[in-house]
């Protein structure tokens, strides 16, 4: 089975407001707020860590959920975020040069 890689779309704007991640689409300025799982995916989307590892390390450890089911749900979520151009997804690692905000703190604030 191929692995899925995710990177944050450099065209979006993002900020965490009291733990709730806001993302504004760079395509049409639509505003989204992410739930806890989607926020973890967003924060972990460095283009190089495969989704199954993110699920294993960040999601299964935090939520009591079966790994296969969690990966399935996370893949659906990642594809949905990609459809809104919030994330870029690929079956290959996504080089950092494609992400203006690749080294940023992913919109995190105090």
């Amino acid at each position, binding site marked *: 089975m191929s692995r899925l890689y995710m990177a944050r779309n*450099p*065209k*979006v*704007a*993002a*900020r*965490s*407001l*009291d733990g*709730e991640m*806001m993302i*504004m689409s*760079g395509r049409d*300025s*639509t*505003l*989204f*707020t992410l739930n806890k799982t989607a926020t973890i995916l967003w924060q972990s989307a460095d283009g190089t860590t495969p989704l199954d590892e993110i699920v294993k390390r960040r999601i299964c450890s935090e939520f009591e959920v079966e790994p296969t089911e969690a990966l399935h749900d996370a893949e659906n979520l990642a594809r949905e975020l990609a459809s809104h151009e919030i994330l870029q997804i690929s079956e290959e690692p996504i080089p950092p040069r494609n992400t*203006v*905000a690749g*080294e*940023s*703190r*992913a*919109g995190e*604030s*105090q």
Partner: protein
Amino acid sequence: MSGLLQEMTEKAQRLNIPFNVQLDLTYRCNERCVHCYLDHDDHGEMTTVEIKHLLDEMAEAGVFILTLSGGEIFLRKDFFELLEHARHLMFCVKLKTNAVLIRESQAARIRDLGVESVQISIYSHRPEVHDGITLIPGSLKRSVDAIRFLKSQGLKVIIANVLMTQNRQDYPGVRALAAELGVECTLDPTITPMMDGNRSTLDLAVDQNTLRQVFRDTALVGDVDEFCAIPAPSGESELESTPCSAGHTACYVSPYGEVFPCVQFPLPTGNVRQQRFVDIWRDSDRMKEVRSIRLKDLTTCPSCTHVGSCTRCPGLAFMEGNMRGPSSQDCGKSFARTGIPSANMLAKKSAAANLGHNLVQIRTAPNLASATA
């Protein structure tokens, strides 16, 4: 404002987070607009390093919407370096510019950096009027060319049209130009006094007749009957509400690092060269004072018919002498809209009548005159 953005703004207010900040990068400008409230000399702008540090602090404080304005932002040689840093920090960046210096390459770079929108000042569709306001020959052509470059990059462009005596007949032409260019257009009849308190620019504000005409233009306001309707009486909950976002979810930082509640509210609350941005936002006594004001605390407005629907600007009120007082320009707008004078207008009329009465009394003191004769 979209429902979710409104919800997030309300959440920011509950959490005391400066959600929306305008940062003027410079007061220098390549136009000399007749209504401008700024001193264009450079009195010690923040350096590149200082502004980058400020942007870091703002991101940490939770600022989401960052408007970069001026002066003319493209006069800063480090503009793109600052913009890149701002986008690296994932702000939702909006630009305000006259766009005279934007050509194809700048437009492409703005697109690549993921700017949310670019607001460009256009005063008329006629060069003789627009250039007569900016005092720069050829400026309309340059700005309109820039709009085309930006649009060709797929960027969201908004034409900002300030209404004043010089261009009062031209706003339909500007709207037609915006439609032709495929961009949004806003119209604002507010003229701001100079930052040093000089109020001479207010002479350029349009008169009541023009305001009445504008407020009854269906192309601008939609349903005129609804827009110009007599407001319903305000309830107690409305009087408990805050006057505007200044100091609550929004503030303004000048090129010299001074923090104010709003660009139109020149009450100094601190300087980021001396204090952390978030400390000024949270702890400044003046910011707290602005934040404490509710509609019920205003001096004249709570009894006014328009209190629930008025566009009263606390900054303009401050520049008239009292941040809790009325803003006469906004009283004029409410009157032009509905035909009902504001409580402030009635109070001034009454005061003038009383003054007249007193003068009559002084004039008619023949007994005193005859007694001393």
